[in-house]
């Protein structure tokens, strides 16, 4: 198990390193790129370029720049440094720290909804394969899979916010509303309800599909037949025995999805104006604010890579066969 974990962690670090290097090449070492020029802002003077090159070391050999770039990413207090936003000179870490609570709120709320929704639809479908329930579930799944996030988000905004509001029924908050949980939990939930629904509906489809197929497979196994033969109620068989053991693939998917949202739900945040990592990165890209873009890309990648490791570890705990391979 330790070996397995070490292996996964080192692979994760390699993945991060690849991403970090790609980002470096894209932004600092790509042929024709002139980072000082992009940093210089609106009035470029040769002197300013020279100063910037000196200050940021853009005139050093690429390999030295790369080394300096890597050095400050060592996760150690006092060393770790994502730089300063070109926009407002805030440390990028501060910008990220301000945005992350929004992503956590988004992730937690929507994850609860998509897990409950996804798994229950999947169970319904699996318990009566080829029934009306199952067909309904299939429609749900296929619609969810076919629905681009921004369409669902815009539709929800149009119908539940815009149409209702212009008819004087202002139930749902306007886009851009955000209340910290610590300030008012009810307001917090109220402000996030539409983004949660958007993320959850889109994501739940995958879980229904996973639950259905996984549960169907488990229900066909011998020990379930034994359980049935023992005279256990169907409820008990499904919920206590089968469901538990068919959750393994769901756990895997869950970890990755959660990490993706934590790293910034780009579309959802853009549509609902939530100042999380996703919106921050889109805005930073629009104004070519490189330190922020790079910082968020790295953080988001870290979430995904870390989630992959956790998921693999969990998987190995749940299913010992994995360790062998």
């Amino acid at each position: 198990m330790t070996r397995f974990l070490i292996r996964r962690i080192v692979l994760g670090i390699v993945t991060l390193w690849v991403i970090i290097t790609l980002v470096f090449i894209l932004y600092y070492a790509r042929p024709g790129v002139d980072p000082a020029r992009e940093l210089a802002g609106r009035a470029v003077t040769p002197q300013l370029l020279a100063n910037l090159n000196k200050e940021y070391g853009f005139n050093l050999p690429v390999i030295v720049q790369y080394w300096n770039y890597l050095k400050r990413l060592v996760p150690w207090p006092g060393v770790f440094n994502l730089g300063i936003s070109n926009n407002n000179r805030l440390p990028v870490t501060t910008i990220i720290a301000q945005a992350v609570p929004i992503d956590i709120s988004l992730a937690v709320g929507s994850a609860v909804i998509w897990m409950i929704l996804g798994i229950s639809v999947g169970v319904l479908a699996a318990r009566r394969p080829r029934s009306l329930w199952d067909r309904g579930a299939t429609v749900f799944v296929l619609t969810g899979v076919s629905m681009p996030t921004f369409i669902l988000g815009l539709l929800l905004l149009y119908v539940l916010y815009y149409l209702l509001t212009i008819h004087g029924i202002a139930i749902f908050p306007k886009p851009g509303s955000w209340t910290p949980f610590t300030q008012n939990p009810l307001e917090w939930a109220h402000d996030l309800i539409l983004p949660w629904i958007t993320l959850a509906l889109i994501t739940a489809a995958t879980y229904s599909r996973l639950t259905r197929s996984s549960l169907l497979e488990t229900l066909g196994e011998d020990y379930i037949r034994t359980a049935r033969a023992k005279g256990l109620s169907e409820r008990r068989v499904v919920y206590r025995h089968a469901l538990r053991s068919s959750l393994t693939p769901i756990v895997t998917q869950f970890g990755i999805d959660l990490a993706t949202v934590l790293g910034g739900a780009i579309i959802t945040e853009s549509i609902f104006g939530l100042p999380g990592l996703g919106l921050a990165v889109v805005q930073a890209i629009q104004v070519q604010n490189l330190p922020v873009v790079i910082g968020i890309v790295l953080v988001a990648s870290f979430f995904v890579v870390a989630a992959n490791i956790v998921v693999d570890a969990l998987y190995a705990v749940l299913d010992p066969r994995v360790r062998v391979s």
Partner: protein
Amino acid sequence: MSLSTVEAKASEVPAEDPAVKGIQGRTPLQLVVARLRTDRVAIISIVVIVLIVALAIGAPLIAAITGHGPTDTNVDTGTDANGQPLPPGSAGYLLGTDNLGRDILVRIAFGARVSLLVGVLATAIATIVGVVVGLFAGYYGGWLDSILARIMDVVLSFPYVLFAIVLVSVFGSSLELTILVIAFFSFAAIGRIVRGQALSQREKEYVEAAHSLGAGNLRIMFVDILPNLVAPVIVLATLLIPTAIIFEATLSFLGLGIALPTPSWGNMLSDAEGVGFQAWWFYIFPMMFLLLTTLAFNLLGDAVRDALDPRTERIFAGRRKKKPA
């Protein structure tokens, strides 16, 4: 024993299994087609797809009939005094106009070209690359497999929407780049499946048989193993098309996909967002077409999967969702 007895024996042989006669002459393809023909959902999906293809092909015709080119701005006649879009039905604009007075119907028709082109081409590239990479990794194994599988793992654990945005922001948006970016983030999904299948296929005796006949590695990979992977690859590819279409629409929606003024359903919605919900027609029609297309492809993909081999479901249930959150 003489040759005559061999012949005599040969004539007896079919008697070993009389049932064999029943499926004579039906190739796997014929079987799939036959099964699809009985699937109502598949037929409807195909009809929808054919209609959208017809719309795409007939786009210049629609432009000619309406007299509105896809990029002709008609701000003078196509918008009201304040420069706002006209609703459906006004002044010869069947589905209304956009913020530059362009005919939404014409732009949707030309947008279908982009969607289909991106969907099909990106999928084709991803499939070819994925198959080649997966085959090489799975067939050769060893260090080549380690490297290729690792690369695919890294690509799959990228926060891909984020990375796509970064890539496009660095290189500038264009149709070609959009297709390449989508293909890049999709090939690993196919590659991984193909690798897994190739890993198991290469242990089969027929591979050894081919080897013993003197077949080279390339011949074994592409003549012997590849036909055995066609079913999962076809299904995955069919399901990748709508994913690629959504991906393109998402990039375009963020202003990072198809370059203006070429219409794409995604950048039409992006334009719509700049106008506001009161121009509902500017939202609803591109949404409708986008959703219809992705749904049709997903339904068809599911049907093809069932027709090819119902048992493959497990593979796709766990397939990575390629949809931005």
